[in-house]
């Protein structure tokens, strides 16, 4: 991979000032400095500590991170399905087409759910209601939101199932979720999320529960749908392979914050945060057969006791004294990238 083209020094990722950008470039969905706490038996866990990202129409943003880094919590907060309590949103903003969501009333948020921003969950078996047919669950939104008749809703459900590649959709529409295979269930879930033609689709680890071969099929399906409908897709995953294939941009999360953000090729070629670097080094590669796999040492921090300074410093191979005291902000770098490492520039040279 060659050096990335040096972009203009524009602070695209972190600045709150939007500026008059072109309509095509205006983000569909924007998350800014989102902060969420969970009140647990062991104290207050700071699950999100200022998360900012955005997605534009026709763009796929991959949110990457270990489990517990706050990927799903961010998504659930965007959808407004966070369990409050124990969770508490302590700050930040979520904007859909410029409209502030966190201060919007529940009725408005409900209107947006499914219709404008839809979500696909990780485990379709538990995410689908076991006692209703797949067709009922897909058609339910059409009946309650679009006032469709039972028959029309069912016909539309068949179309949607057909579209996501379920063979014999007409017969399968009356099946129950447990009668589907894992891959088919996830397809049905995708069909359900598309029922109201949303503009933004959040896919929370949509393939984690599936076999590897099925994983690829589902990812292809999602990518196709995203391209066809010009949707903004937020893909939450910890699978770097998936990311490389379908994402346009990547946001890497660690301990409830974004530590690095940027274009997928640039980020893979030249990570600007030691955590990203370590993540990439942990992938087995065909061309490095025989060399030892580089696991990241240590464990992610307990969110009730996030270390002082840079939260990654106890595990960081490049740790310096200053890292233990200074919590580095996410700073813009050339090429529309951003990193939360004090030595991001240095990493670029190494």
């Amino acid at each position, binding site marked *: 991979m060659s050096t990335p083209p040096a972009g203009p020094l524009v602070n695209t990722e972190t600045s709150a000032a939007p500026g008059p950008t072109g309509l095509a470039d205006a983000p569909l969905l924007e998350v800014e400095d989102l902060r969420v706490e969970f009140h*647990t*038996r062991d104290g207050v866990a700071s699950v999100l500590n200022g998360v900012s990202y955005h997605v534009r129409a026709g763009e796929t943003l991959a949110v990457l991170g270990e489990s517990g880094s706050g990927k799903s919590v961010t998504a659930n907060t965007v959808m407004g399905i966070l369990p409050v*309590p*124990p969770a508490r949103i302590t700050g930040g903003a979520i904007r859909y087409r410029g409209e502030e969501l966190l201060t919007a009333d529940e009725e408005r948020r409900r209107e947006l759910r499914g219709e404008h921003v839809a979500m696909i969950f990780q485990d379709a078996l538990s995410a689908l209601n076991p006692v209703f047919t797949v067709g009922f669950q897909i058609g339910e939104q059409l009946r309650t939101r679009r006032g469709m008749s039972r028959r029309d809703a069912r016909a539309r459900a068949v179309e949607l199932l057909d579209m996501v590649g379920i063979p014999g959709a007409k017969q399968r529409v009356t099946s129950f979720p447990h009668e589907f295979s894992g891959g088919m269930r996830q397809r049905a879930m995708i069909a359900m999320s598309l029922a109201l033609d949303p503009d933004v689709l959040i896919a929370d680890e949509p393939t984690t529960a599936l076999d590897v071969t099925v994983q690829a099929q589902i990812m292809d399906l999602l990518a196709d749908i995203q391209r066809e409908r010009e949707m903004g897709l937020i893909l939450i995953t910890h699978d770097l392979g998936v990311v490389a294939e379908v994402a346009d941009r990547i946001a890497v999360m660690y301990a409830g914050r974004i530590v690095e953000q940027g274009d997928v090729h640039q980020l893979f070629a030249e990570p600007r945060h030691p955590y990203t670097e370590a993540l990439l080094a942990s992938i087995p590669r065909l061309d490095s057969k025989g060399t030892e796999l580089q696991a990241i*040492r*240590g*464990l992610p*921090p*307990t969110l*009730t*006791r*996030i*270390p*002082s300074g840079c939260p990654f410093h*106890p*595990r960081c191979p490049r740790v310096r004294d200053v890292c*233990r005291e200074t919590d580095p902000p996410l700073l813009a770098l050339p090429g529309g990238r951003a990193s939360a490492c004090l030595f991001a520039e240095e990493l670029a040279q190494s």
Partner: protein
Amino acid sequence: MTDPTTVTSDKPVASPAAAEAAVTRSRSLGADAWYDLRRRPLFIVAATLIGALLVLAAFPQLFTSVDPTVGDLSRARQGPSAEAWFGYDNLGRDVFARTIYGTRVSIVVGVLATTFVVLLGAVMGLIAGFVGGWLDSLLARIADVFFGVPFVLGAIVVLSTFRQSVGQSVIGISGLVIGTIGLLSWPVTMRIMRSAAIAARSQDYVKAARALGAGPWRIIVRHMLPNTIAPVMVYATIALGAFIGAEATLSFLGVGLRDPVVSWGVMISEAQSYLRTSPHLLLFPGGFLVVTVLAFVLLGDAVRDAFDPKGRS
């Protein structure tokens, strides 16, 4: 400076603070539950009540110097007064003394019946769950048969059948009541134990222990019992309260304990005919009964909540 929770796995634990943190994080379910319990007001209330009742049962003479079986017909059914706080019963016996002495029988019946049920049920359940196959099916069917008998009716049949054979002795009658309660209730513990044992059997760590050549006895004692004991104990606590109530119900129906024995159930049973004129005859033993059952139900509730990580927030 270094936060103890971020101890890296490839380095030995460095500071004492870090060691302590590691210990608190890996505390066992039991220790966790105990930690949780001590902070529940309901648990403290229940435990205190039960403690007080146990003292009453063990040393009734500390609380009253009156003989609970001596009656004076001239003061029959007198209401509560300074000499007799709870009044006198139909035969002029001191209700306070009888209530205090009744604690012992009621608690002993409850404890023994629970022990019986837990031991019998646990052994059957462990065998059925561990061995499996036809033996499991057979034991499960036997449990079904006993479970199919409605409790009160089954108890009536058993008690009236053996009434003659045990005679009039206190131990005989009490033993019969305990045996009856146990006989009709063991399928519940058996089922709890069986499903817990089956669940434990298919756990990977038990499979691993087996593969490593651990004998059946070791697997049961070291791997299955610790995981099955919690649900059984929770049931046992609640059941203890229920059995004390059951003893009273059976006495009330006239098939349980009888006169030479002093128990709350016997007292309530004797009070039946004088409800209109002398409600105190029902009130005091009934009140003690309710408080005791309540204490055990509360305790069982608290223990279950403490052992159920799902219920925590």
